[in-house]
């Protein structure tokens, strides 16, 4: 029996390993393509499969990092990626906890009130008018305030809290803790895995966002984010230089280099958050 089990386990381990390696390859390939392309000599690189840089040239990176505005864009991106998730966690997690409290009057209304917003879209122009009335057009806070409530994340937090045994909460209530204290001191620490996940979503969302810049801060170059600059580089139509000639203002290698720059931060953020995902140790310890 034991022998059979360990054979099964071994088989499981091996297939698990192989599957993970396969996943690694298909996930990493595009990055390898982009990296190789950005480092290649533009004259040598052509169509088809790219596995390693052909020739070597740092010109694309020189061009990408050549203008000072790119550093400002990186600064704005980092700023919104730091402040945005903090705001989002504060507002969303508190609300997420509140909508688990069945004893709160109107909790069901609150839930519907929040969840419905996920499916409602008012259209670009009305939203723009409201944002303008708030004075957020051309301001940094347009990146932070509208995304401070993420109902998707709120529901994730809510359902995580619901999976925690109620006894914990009740015993704290017995001790006369107020709800604010109860949430921040008891519930929030237990929620670490989901908070980490949601923070990651928030950070990635903030880092990747460019639509808000495109809509609200188009005329404010001082608020351009890195992703928006990349978006500009990617979608800029070929420039008509006259005499029926059109050239790409942003050669492919340049765009690839920009893409590499935008992927790099995940290498910084993820390992930090990762330790909260692996293993079920923390919960056991807290509950024990």
């Amino acid at each position, binding site marked *: 029996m034991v022998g059979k089990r360990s054979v099964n386990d071994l088989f499981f381990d091996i297939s698990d390993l192989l599957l993970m390696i396969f996943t690694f390859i298909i996930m990493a390939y595009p990055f390898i393509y982009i990296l190789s392309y950005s480092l290649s000599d533009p*004259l*040598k690189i*052509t*169509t*088809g499969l790219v596995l390693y840089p052909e020739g070597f040239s740092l010109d694309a990176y020189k*061009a990408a990092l050549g*203008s000072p*505005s*790119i550093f400002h864009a990186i*600064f*704005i991106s980092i*700023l919104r990626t*730091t*402040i945005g998730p*903090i*705001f989002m966690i*504060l507002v969303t997690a508190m609300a997420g906890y509140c909508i688990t409290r069945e004893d709160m009057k109107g909790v069901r209304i609150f839930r519907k009130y929040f969840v419905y917003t996920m499916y409602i879209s008012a259209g*670009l*122009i009305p939203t*723009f*008018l409201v944002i*303008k009335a708030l*004075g957020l*057009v*051309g*301001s*940094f806070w347009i990146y932070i305030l509208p995304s401070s409530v993420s109902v998707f994340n709120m529901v994730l937090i809510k359902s995580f809290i619901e999976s925690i045994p109620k006894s914990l909460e009740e015993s704290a209530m017995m001790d006369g803790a107020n709800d604010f204290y109860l949430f*921040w*001191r008891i519930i929030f620490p237990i929620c670490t895995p989901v908070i980490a996940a949601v923070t990651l979503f928030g950070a990635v969302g903030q880092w990747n966002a460019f639509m808000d810049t*495109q*809509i609200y801060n*188009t*005329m*404010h*170059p*001082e*608020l351009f984010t890195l992703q928006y*600059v990349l*978006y*500009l*580089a*990617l*979608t*800029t*139509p*070929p*420039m*008509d*230089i*006259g*005499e*029926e*000639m*059109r*050239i*790409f*203002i*942003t*050669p*492919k290698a340049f765009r690839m280099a920009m893409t590499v720059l935008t992927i790099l931060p995940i290498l910084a953020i993820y390992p930090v958050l990762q330790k909260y995902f692996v293993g079920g140790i923390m919960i056991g310890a807290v509950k024990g």
Partner: protein
Amino acid sequence: MKKIKMLVLLITIVALMSTAACSGKSNTGTTSTTSAGTTAIASTSAAPQEEYVIKVLFEGGKTVDRSDLQEAGKVIKEKFNIIFEWVPFAGNYIEYSNTLLASGEYPELMIIRGNDQVKNFIKAGALLPLDDYLKGSKYFTETYKVLIPFWRMIAPDNKLYKWETNVLRTVGVPTEVAVRSDLLEEQGWPLLRSTKDYIDFLKVAKEKHPTVDGKPSFGMVFPGADIAGIWFPRIVAFTGDTYFQVNNDHNIVYNLKTQQYENYLNQSIKESLKFFNDLHQAGILDDECFTDTYEILTQKLKTGQAFSYINSRYGGVDNKALIDSGHPEMQYISMPIQLASQVEKNEKALTVTSIFSAYESVVMTKNAKYPERIFQVLDWAASDEGQLLIQSGVEGVDYLRDENGIRYRTEEMWTNWQNPEYVLKIGTWQFKTLIGRIATSPVDGQAYGIKKVTNTDRIKEALNKYGWTETSGWFNDKNSFVYAALFDSMISIDPASETGRLGIQIKELINNEQTGLIRASSNDEFERLWTKLMNDYNKLNPKSFTDAYNAELVKVKSAIDKIK
């Protein structure tokens, strides 16, 4: 509690940092826009010495460029103390300009796509009429004398609200095919003209060269997944002397002989599609063409994998890359193309010029701080001096003159003119799009823009074989330049109306069906699919669409008569 305190502290720090970093700059932005509306009236008294920075939204561009760092911009800065800040934009420009209009957040100067949108802006009262400034104009009224009445036509109060750039230019140029010159040499420099010539030529070439440097070769390529590339298979229909492709939607044609609009699907279109089907049946058409974007296409041209490329005027040929990668013999030269039936009738290829360019309209909005100063720049740009600077750059830097006074590009300009950094630095591209570009009006016998291009040795050699001096030499010898007063940009059918919708349906139907036609495996199948397409097309009642266009044409013509 410590954690929370830390958190709160952190947030305040970060928040303070952000406000310090961003608000300083963004504040200036908001104040300028809010004050713009109020100062617009009192602007005349403003001191011209004050530096005036105007943000201009620009489709294309990657980072913000300031005009005072560009050659032409330096002159403008010196003369008028005005600096343009080119703010890049990418995305749906029409949608964005709608949002700006709805919210009143529009910038001081704005490029607008099409008369429909200009009309919307006028209706909303967002624009500033130029009439008050015209009196003081030295060059503007003179240069655009012919055009101003037409520009006025769109305004209900007959005031002048807009100007156009890129006017008086050639809009219908004969289609050219870029062909690899070494293949031409191999077959004894044949003159390719009719669609039949191409099929024979490419068949031989493809047999001889199934691969290029170990990579698959392609007989004829075009960017079928590109928004504009989708209509290339129909382009050969417009190489004769009758039909002219008028609007960007490709759902109606203009017959130059009858001066009327006609239904889109006709015998020429069929012949053009059949040509592509023949290419496909012969295995010469690139199988990937329907999934190729423009960028992928340029890759194929850089390596010489593509033997020929229809409509090379669309851009993409990069002979410099071929030279740099060690294949100078492959450099592409341009060949004419016509339908076999057109060649039989010995039709001439048309070059159609249009005086309007509504798609490139520019307006001054009510948010303009010093409209008078803007107009001064505009007026100066209409002068010979301004146009030369805008289109050709600075003498001595960007161009020189030979002993006969003919302008030609400097060595530096010539080697760099395909280098984006360089082009952006000169900035002529942006000025052309903003403050006017007159394409065909000449000074000292030459156009403002430099046409004379230095050919490489290889190209010269190839051209010599044909006795041409330029790469589109055949046209210069054989074609007749027809000046047709085209009104298509004056004609606008409300896209949201039933007729406008029908136009989209026609376009969609043809775009959807054409692929099947091109890929038909036999002539019978092609005929069957064509009959089916014609049935579907006729069911849509295309006549009503054509009639609507002709009715508009009559209206525009009578309005023009009134002006005269």
